[in-house]
């Protein structure tokens, strides 16, 4: 019976505080939604990955060769710890469809699933050996061109044009993220994976009794290093590259990186929200309890214990949180579904639909309640210290600090003094409020900066650094004279040779595989820039290292670095670091060709070229170059640009919108609550001022100046905080393939301030309605209830 009465009181209190309950509810809703969506998206991604890898037997160890006799396969199979094995042929070729696309051809047993890296069929069936050459085609490419089983395709393998027929559309755990060679991002229109019966592919690739790619699964993952060593040893006479694990498989690495980032945001975003929720509940409750002192005292005098009163108020907090949590779960599912859908455009899993992780709901609501209880706790402690006799009296006004009392106070009107003293007499609260609002604008800045950063990267890469149209790599090293035949092709305007060597950098305790690029002295088609993007000429001696090495490895100019070539003749190179280059896409080192040749103990020359071409001849030239026997691969600047503009931008857009939306949620929750709390606290003063002859508008202005000042403090603080947040975020997400510069457009600052300003304006407008309705007499009459 006792609790029933108190329970009714709790509900009535909440209803009379509905505006604050609502604004806090919005925050809780966003907090729970952000946790439910990011966590569930993380779990969805992770479980889709784990399930797919397991059910379709993604290899644990991989290796690529030029050609290894099949007779060695038996030896590899019998390495202790090896479970399933796949010895296959893997070649690069083209698919001739519209604009030819780079293709990876892989052999599979006719009509059967390979033992490792099994295919998951979306449509049709596995290719079988017959008079026609059948293939299974990767889903991404098939979708990009609306291809279906039964459709014919013209492909080119080792210079031979052949017609094939699509038997099935498939995805594979090996190509969840299908990334073509030489590009940093996937582009389904430019890269295809095709699986072909081994008899056909071996014939086309001229591979007899040999394989050039292996994948195997292990009985136990801890054996990986041992097995890799054994594989390398068995194939040592054919070794081009060392065996590697899943962590170096490109698709797996991308998926893992995304999962890591998703996990980071599943931790950070909800923390921000729920921290702010705790603060707001603290403020709201502090005020509520202050106003309810006489009631609390009465309850105490009637014989209620501290415990039951505390329980009553905690019950209110929990109710308040639940009010926001339940729609938060729904909103989280909605956003989670959105994130999942945006992933499914890049990641090809057999089944990939958003799954609500019940743990995220439990944890989300649990943390929300915890943060609310924590926020209320400090205020609630005051209850126990309250003597009933003392509490029955009206609350003693907080002693005012003697600020703005002497120094130049005469310059301030009484009303300004009121505003300033009210603000500065509670410095902790002022700080927290300013922090709350500035967090909102900083989160929005963070969201918007993603767009600024990608724009900046794109502009830098495509307007400042890359001046060529085509970047061609050769099958072998040739003399400079070979460039002449390229120069003679119709449509070619300018050609420059380059020598690129894949190396493993060994720098101050970490090692990383990247490209060492040697350029001619007359280099014009590439601009090398320093980390501030000022032109940086190639040093006469030594190398320019990517700035990322300096930031991660702490290396300084003048030091020596070692690089091991990862292809024959596996030579170790040694260079002095002359300076640093601000590479945006891909990291590595740059130097002059003579500098490199001085150390190489093999043929001089070049193994690639940059071409500037006549745009009118672009397509013709492109198809022609692809057939060029010397040419191994071509990277088109325009498709790279397209990949960035569309793929990356689309990926970022969803995230940006979500975070901006979350930021707005915080802004609204904090600003509205601040205004609402100030309004309730000042309501008597406002009424008194109106008795003295101030118009409602004038009295209301006082309130608005108080909150407005906090906003004014918060906006620059938010810009500051936002900049810090972006710096912190960028250093934590720098991937192996990109170096993210910190760029924040002035527009993003303005936009974030404008959005917070909108939240402010809306809150002010709704409060004005309340203020107009407020009756002076009622206000002055009511002394002690909320």
């Amino acid at each position, binding site marked *: 019976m006792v609790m029933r009465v108190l329970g009714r009181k709790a509900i009535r209190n909440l209803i009379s505080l509905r505006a604050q309950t609502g604004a806090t509810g919005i925050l809780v809703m966003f907090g729970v939604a952000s946790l439910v969506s990011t966590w569930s998206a993380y779990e969805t991604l992770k479980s889709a990955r784990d399930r797919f890898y397991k059910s379709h037997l993604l290899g644990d160890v991989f290796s690529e060769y030029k050609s290894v006799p099949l007779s060695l396969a038996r030896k590899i199979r019998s390495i202790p710890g090896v479970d399933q094995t796949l010895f296959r042929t893997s070649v690069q070729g083209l698919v001739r469809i519209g604009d030819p696309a780079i293709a990876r051809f892989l052999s599979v047993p006719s009509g059967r699933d390979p033992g490792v890296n099994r295919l998951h069929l979306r449509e049709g069936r596995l290719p079988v050996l017959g008079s026609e050459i059948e293939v299974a085609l990767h889903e991404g490419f098939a979708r990009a061109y609306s291809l279906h089983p039964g459709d014919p395709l013209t492909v080119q393998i080792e210079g031979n044009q052949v017609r094939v027929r699509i038997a099935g559309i498939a995805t594979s755990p090996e190509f969840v993220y299908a990334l073509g060679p030489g590009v940093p991002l996937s582009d389904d229109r430019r890269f295809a994976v095709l699986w072909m019966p081994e008899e056909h592919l071996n014939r086309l690739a001229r591979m007899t009794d040999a394989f050039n790619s292996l994948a195997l699964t292990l009985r136990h993952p801890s054996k990986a290093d041992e097995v890799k060593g054994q594989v390398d040893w068995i194939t040592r006479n054919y070794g081009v590259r060392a065996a590697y694990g899943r962590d170096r498989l490109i698709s797996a690495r991308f998926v893992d990186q995304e999962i890591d980032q998703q996990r980071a945001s599943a931790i950070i975003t909800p923390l921000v929200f729920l921290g702010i929720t705790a603060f707001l509940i603290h403020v709201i409750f502090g005020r509520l309890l202050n106003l309810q002192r006489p009631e609390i005292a009465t309850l105490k005098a009637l014989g209620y214990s501290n415990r039951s009163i505390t329980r009553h108020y905690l019950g209110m907090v929990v109710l308040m949180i639940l009010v926001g949590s339940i729609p938060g779960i729904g909103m989280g599912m909605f956003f989670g579904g959105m994130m999942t859908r945006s992933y499914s455009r890049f990641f090809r899993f057999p089944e990939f639909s958003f799954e609500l992780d019940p743990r995220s709901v439990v944890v989300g609501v649990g943390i929300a309640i915890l943060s609310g209880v924590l926020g209320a706790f400090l205020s609630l402690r005051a209850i126990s210290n309250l003597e009933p006799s003392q509490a029955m009296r009206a609350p*003693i*006004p*907080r*002693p*005012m600090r003697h600020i703005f*009392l002497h120094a130049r106070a005469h310059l301030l*009107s*009484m*009303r300004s*003094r*009121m505003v300033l*003293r*009210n603000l500065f*007499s509670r410095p902790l609260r002022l700080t927290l409020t300013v922090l709350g609002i500035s967090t909102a604008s900083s989160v929005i800045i963070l969201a918007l900066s993603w767009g600024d950063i990608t724009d900046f990267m794109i502009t830098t890469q495509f307007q400042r650094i890359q001046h060529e149209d085509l970047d061609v790599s050769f099958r072998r090293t040739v003399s400079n004279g070979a460039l002449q035949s390229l120069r003679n092709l119709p449509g070619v305007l300018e050609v420059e040779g380059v020598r690129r060597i894949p190396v493993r950098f060994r720098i101050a305790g970490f090692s990383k595989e990247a490209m060492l690029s040697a350029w001619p002295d007359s280099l014009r088609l590439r601009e090398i820039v320093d980390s501030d993007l000022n032109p940086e000429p190639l040093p006469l001696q030594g190398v320019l290292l990517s700035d990322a090495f300096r930031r991660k490895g702490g290396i300084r100019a003048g030091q020596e670095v070692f690089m091991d070539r990862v292809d024959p003749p596996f030579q170790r190179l040694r260079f002095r670091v002359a300076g640093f280059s601000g590479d945006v896409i891909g990291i590595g080192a740059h130097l002059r060709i003579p500098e490199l040749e001085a150390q190489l103990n093999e043929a001089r020359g070049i193994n690639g070229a940059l071409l500037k071409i006549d745009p009118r001849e672009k397509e013709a030239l492109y198809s022609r170059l692809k057939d060029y026997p010397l040419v191994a691969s071509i990277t088109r600047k325009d498709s790279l640009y397209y990949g960035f503009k569309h793929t990356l931008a689309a990926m970022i857009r969803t995230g940006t919108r979500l975070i901006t939306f979350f930021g707005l949620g915080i802004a609204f929750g904090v600003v509205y609550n601040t205004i609402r709390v100030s309004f309730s606290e000042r309501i*008597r*003063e406002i*009424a*008194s*001022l*109106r*008795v*003295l*002859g*101030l*118009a*409602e508008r004038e009295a209301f202005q006082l309130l608005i100046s108080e909150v407005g000042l906090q906003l004014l403090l918060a906006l620059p603080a938010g810009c500051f905080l936002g900049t810090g947040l972006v710096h912190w975020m960028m250093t934590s997400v720098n991937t192996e393939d990109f170096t993210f510069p910190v760029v924040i457009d002035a527009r993003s600052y303005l936009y974030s301030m404008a959005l917070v300003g909108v939240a402010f304006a809306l809150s002010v407008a709704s409060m004005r309605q309340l203020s107009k309705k407020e009756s*002076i*007499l009622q206000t*002055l009459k009511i*002394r002690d209830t909320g």
Partner: protein
Amino acid sequence: MGNPRESREPVFHARGLKKIYQSGGVEVAALRGVDLDLYEGEFVVILGPSGSGKSTLLNILGGLDSATEGEVFYRDHNLVQADPDELTRFRREHVGFVFQFYNLISSLTAEENVQLVTEIAENPMDAAEALRWVGMEGLAARFPSELSGGEQQRVAIARAVSKRPDILLCDEPTGALDVETGRKVIEAILKVNRELRTLSVVITHNAAIAGVADRVIKLASGGIVEVVRNPKKVAVSELSW
């Protein structure tokens, strides 16, 4: 009512004043037809049991509340027809209020609370002077939380009179105070009435205060039941509470 002042123009002139509250579907008549004239320089005490409509009457006179029926004139201003802006201006220019709870602004010192009014009034007195009036000149720099109840109430009076109002309306100004403090407060109000010739209307439960008034108006159940004129006023010090 044989009133010798009838020949003079009243400051307030009310006829058939009614105030009806709708409270939970029930109509509560706080005032049920009040006729009243109040004159310049008068000291009027309103007496009556709780709930008899005293505050309602005072609030309507001060422009804080509106009548449901009837007419109220402040000189030639019709208060019943006035819009909120006109009422605000009326309060600002002519009325000083004192309530049971002092309603001082906690973030301003005693002197600043007075200056709050002198800043917006047309012909105010100096804030220091107003405080001197109520004997608070020594405590001008204190914040309300540093003052006793009686001191706060005297600051409230200083604040009300600093604009040299035409009318001083006090709703149970001594209600929260002890005898001695209450006496000081009444003395301050009397002094204002005597020296500034301000029409002062004071609501009280305390019949003893009636002894110092020119006129005592007794209310019961929303109507005037008796008006008593005091030909000879008693000095405050002689009041027995």
